[in-house]
């Protein structure tokens, strides 16, 4: 009897945790979408009004569009740069450890640090980027103050921060390619590009899919960057999904509406990832 009980005792902390911090919140979040509540006064039944509001909310749409802009820039950059650097590291080189460590450094540092740093690089008058631009004869760019530039600027910064992780993942992928494949292709007279597209790419396809999925989740989780750098501005051009939930929930205390937003963003993330998965599987 006692022996039968032991496995359950071992997993019981997790079961309790799951019920309290996962199952209940998911259920309660659905319940909240039908209510208005500021936590302090009694909850008010709101019917479908939160849903109606969401479908007419220009700022919700803006947050989705902003996230898509972020992803459209971030994902291709991430893949191309990471693959390029991984290819370089995969050559016979000295100091591989040093280069790898250098590329990886931004990955381990807090997003807050990276954000504070890039705020200086992006500065309008004294920022490094604008100084370089002026020096080579171009006009200054409002990296974080021009609504057209602000989100792309954040996307570039996020790429700089994360790309080191994907360099490592691609490097692992590249090292699984059997060298005989390349040797055989060389005998057939294949060019560099042919070897890359015919041999390398199919083998690292799963890694590319992973980069896309992780970057998508990252895009929908964007928070600290706009929070510190722009506050969501200029003209709401950097309002992200999580920043909008945060504002509705913890600034205006609209718990019902914030939960509705969270619920829809979660659905959106899952559907985007599903669609991406479909595409990858079709490719095979």
């Amino acid at each position, binding site marked *: 009897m006692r022996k039968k009980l032991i496995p359950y005792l071992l997993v019981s902390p*997790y079961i309790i945790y*799951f019920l309290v911090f996962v199952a209940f919140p998911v259920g309660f*979040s659905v319940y909240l979408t039908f209510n208005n509540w500021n936590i302090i006064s009694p909850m008010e039944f709101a019917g479908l009004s939160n849903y109606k509001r969401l479908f007419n909310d220009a700022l919700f749409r803006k947050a989705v569009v902003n996230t898509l802009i972020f992803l459209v820039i971030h994902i291709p950059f991430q893949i191309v740069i990471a693959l390029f650097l991984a290819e370089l590291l995969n050559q016979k*080189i000295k100091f591989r450890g*040093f280069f790898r460590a250098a590329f*990886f450094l931004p990955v381990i540092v*807090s997003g807050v*640090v990276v954000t504070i*740093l890039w705020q200086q690089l992006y500065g309008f008058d004294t920022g490094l980027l604008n100084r370089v631009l002026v020096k080579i004869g171009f006009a200054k760019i409002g990296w974080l103050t021009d609504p057209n530039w602000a989100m792309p600027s954040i996307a570039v910064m996020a790429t700089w921060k994360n790309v080191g992780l994907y360099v490592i993942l691609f490097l692992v992928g590249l090292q699984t390619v059997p060298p005989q494949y390349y040797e055989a292709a060389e005998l057939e007279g294949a060019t560099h590009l042919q070897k890359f597209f015919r041999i390398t790419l199919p083998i690292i396809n799963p890694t590319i899919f992973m980069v896309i999925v992780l970057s998508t989740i990252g895009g929908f989780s964007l928070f600290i960057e706009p929070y510190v750098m722009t506050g969501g501005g200029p003209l709401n051009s950097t309002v992200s999904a999580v920043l909008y939930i945060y504002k509705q929930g913890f600034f205006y205390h609209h718990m019902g509406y914030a939960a509705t937003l969270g619920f829809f963003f979660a659905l959106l993330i899952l559907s985007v990832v599903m669609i991406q998965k479909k595409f990858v599987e079709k490719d095979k």
Partner: protein
Amino acid sequence: MKKIILYSVLLIGSITFLYPFVWMLGASFAPENEISNLVFLPSSFTFGSYLQMFEKIPIGKAFINSMIVASTITFGVLVFGSMVGYALSRLEFKGRSLIFYIIIFTMTLPFQITLIPQYILIVKFGWIDSYTGLILPYLMNALAIIMFRQYFKTIPQDLIDAARIDGCGELKIIFRILWPNSIPALVTVGIITFMASWNEVLWPLIVIRDENLMTMPQLVTLFAVGGRAESQLGVKLAAAVILALPIVAAYVFFQKYFIQSMASSGMKE
């Protein structure tokens, strides 16, 4: 010739990733009027920015808070993760695969959906402005459980059987027999967990309002956006240096483990 191009590209790449950090370090020691020069070495070194920062915000207290929170979470994730991982990989019981699927399910669940209700839970439990509020929601981690489950599967059954014959209980088997044989898994899970909770900033922003309980990234964030740095760039950068320092120091020593751990966690997702 080809080699020269290869190394120059690699060098430019590493400068792109390293230069901002080196500049930050130099600028935090520079006199305020020299910071915007973006040079490596200031004409004179000063601790002025650091002294002002220590005066303005309780960064020492925040360091201790972050240490307590991140260590407790890491310890909890290691202990509970290996208990559940052990049960799932080595013990037969009804509902085992159900629990496994639940864990996989929670890994795919976007946090956006649980953020608001989890906050409400913390409010109702009275854990706003407490370590409990910071720690409890992170004490279990699905990825850690899966990693321990995988790793424990590779340990020979003979080892466990021998321990049972010697009269070891299940907890003793986990912590005395499996742990010493699972150092790579412990290091991987430990590093990922500690780093993630050290760098976490959204959750502290939500559950902590008392400045004396704030974690380091939270305090530095509020300092950077709250205008208390009063546009004194040097003070802001000094705060960023202090925030980055512990993790970078650990990284310099355990670089290989950091990279391996992060890579293997990425692989699993």
